[in-house]
């Protein structure tokens, strides 16, 4: 067993160093493909993260009909609190709304001169339970609110949520379609380069077949070579993506960085990195497997 391992490691090393150029090309192509896939993964990861942060802050504003008697506000507040998915409800009176608008307008609050607070409708600010803070389940709460006759209008920024959600889904779909194509490409390229390596050892393999070498003696070094190519390709792609990610932040203007402070642009989490490395390695192995099936048949 030890001898077998020694042989396999030595043979793999000889194969790779003896065919430097094809190996360099293969690893480079794997790096580029994996980098494209990882970049999409990183963008999708950050947008999903952004969506999650936004969803955590998601709330519904239910505007009461003008003239709703204040005696009804208390029972309505209690009724709303009992709705499925509602966590906290806060009543915003016309005066509170006016105060809020003045605060938002700051030095331009004189624009509100002449407007009576009673002109602004009273409303409920409704915060949702965690499970309901997404574009799908928020609609369940909205449907319940629409059935309450005292509410005139329900706002929850639905268009924005839906558009953003569609964007994230489209990005994920593109990531997987592009990823799938790139992965097929990786298998094809790895398998073809390994066929070159194998053909450079054709005479030796033929002799191995004649003298009765176990198929493992012939195939395992090829598998290991593919595995290493995939692992190195995946690893280098992650490293390049990390450098790009770091570099991107260096060139973002400080004013923009300050705005983005609450929405951090994260790097891929360790488990995703591990999956990408594993994916590269498995693809490299699969490429070598295809190559061995094509040209290493015992004959």
């Amino acid at each position, binding site marked *: 067993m030890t*001898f*077998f391992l020694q*042989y396999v490691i030595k043979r793999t090393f000889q194969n790779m160093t003896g065919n430097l150029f094809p190996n360099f090309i293969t690893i480079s192509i794997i790096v580029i493909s994996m980098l494209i896939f990882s970049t999409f993964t990183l963008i999708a990861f950050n947008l999903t993260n952004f969506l999650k942060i936004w969803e955590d802050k998601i709330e519904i504003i239910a505007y009461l009909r003008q003239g709703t008697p204040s005696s009804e506000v208390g029972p309505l507040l209690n009724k709303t609190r009992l709705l499925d998915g509602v966590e906290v409800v806060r009543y915003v009176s016309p005066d509170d709304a006016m105060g809020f608008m003045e605060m938002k307008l700051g030095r331009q609050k004189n624009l509100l001169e002449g407007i009576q607070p009673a002109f602004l409708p009273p409303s409920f600010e409704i915060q949702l339970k965690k499970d309901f803070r997404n574009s799908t389940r928020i609609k369940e709460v909205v449907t319940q609110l629409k059935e309450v006759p005292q509410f005139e209008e329900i706002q929850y920024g639905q268009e924005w949520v839906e558009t953003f959600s569609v964007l994230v889904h489209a990005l994920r779909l593109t990531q997987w379609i592009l990823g799938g194509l790139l992965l097929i490409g990786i298998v094809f390229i790895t398998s073809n380069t390994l066929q070159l390596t194998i053909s450079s050892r054709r*005479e*030796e393999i*033929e*002799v*191995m*077949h*004649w*003298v*009765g*070498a*176990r*198929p493992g*003696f012939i195939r395992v070094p090829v598998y290991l070579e593919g595995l290493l190519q995939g692992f190195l390709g995946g690893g280098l792609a992650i490293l390049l993506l990390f450098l790009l990610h770091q570099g991107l932040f260096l060139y973002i203007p400080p004013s923009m960085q300050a705005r983005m402070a609450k929405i951090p642009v994260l790097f891929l989490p360790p488990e995703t990195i591990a999956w990408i490395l594993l994916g590269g390695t498995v693809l490299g192995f699969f490429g070598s497997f295809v190559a061995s099936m094509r040209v290493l048949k*015992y*004959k």
Partner: protein
Amino acid sequence: MNEAVIEMDHVSKTYPSQISALSDITLEILSGEFTFIAGPSGSGKSTLLRVLCCAETPTSGEVVVCGMHITGPGFKKIYQLRRTMGIVSQDFKLLRDRTVNENVAFALEVTGHTRKEAKRKASDMLSRVGLEEREGDPILALSAGEQQRVAIARALVNAPPLILADEPTGNLDAKMTLDIMGAFTDLHQKGTTIVFATQFTGLVKRYSYRVIRILGGQIVNGRKTDISKVPEVKAGE
């Protein structure tokens, strides 16, 4: 009575282009026999040997080699079959970037022997074929006859009970041919079964071994072995 090492029963081989390479071959070769497969170029000798070592699959018929039903369904262990035989071909199949000793030792290394053991056994075998002084030489520095002897040493180094030799003297001059035949005769006398394909009738006539003549893929006639001349092979040898 020696057991059959090779049994072919109504074996035919037809290529997809409808060329019939072997037609209804039935033969039996006993353990310890030296058998010439004689016939002109293109008669089917090489195909017959390739069928015996599983490099070709026959279209029909059954083949048993060293007790293995190689034409049986699901026969996958070609490497086990090849370990029971030494194969010598006309084109030597030597590794040009290695020395004489490395070429012979390679057959042992890839079948699980340690490098040290392989090197020692290769040296012993090279002495048996008279190449002890050329061990460290690159293979390309050797003459054709010497290269053929290296190929024979490599075929024998695993001590197989069966040798398949396909025109092993095809490229050699008369003296070298006699040298090589001497090596094979020596092996035969030690109990190795030898199947020797050749197109040279002169060579066949020179030795009193069994001859199977083949023409157009069919056995046309043969010369039976004088059983008294076949060395007895004991079990486990």
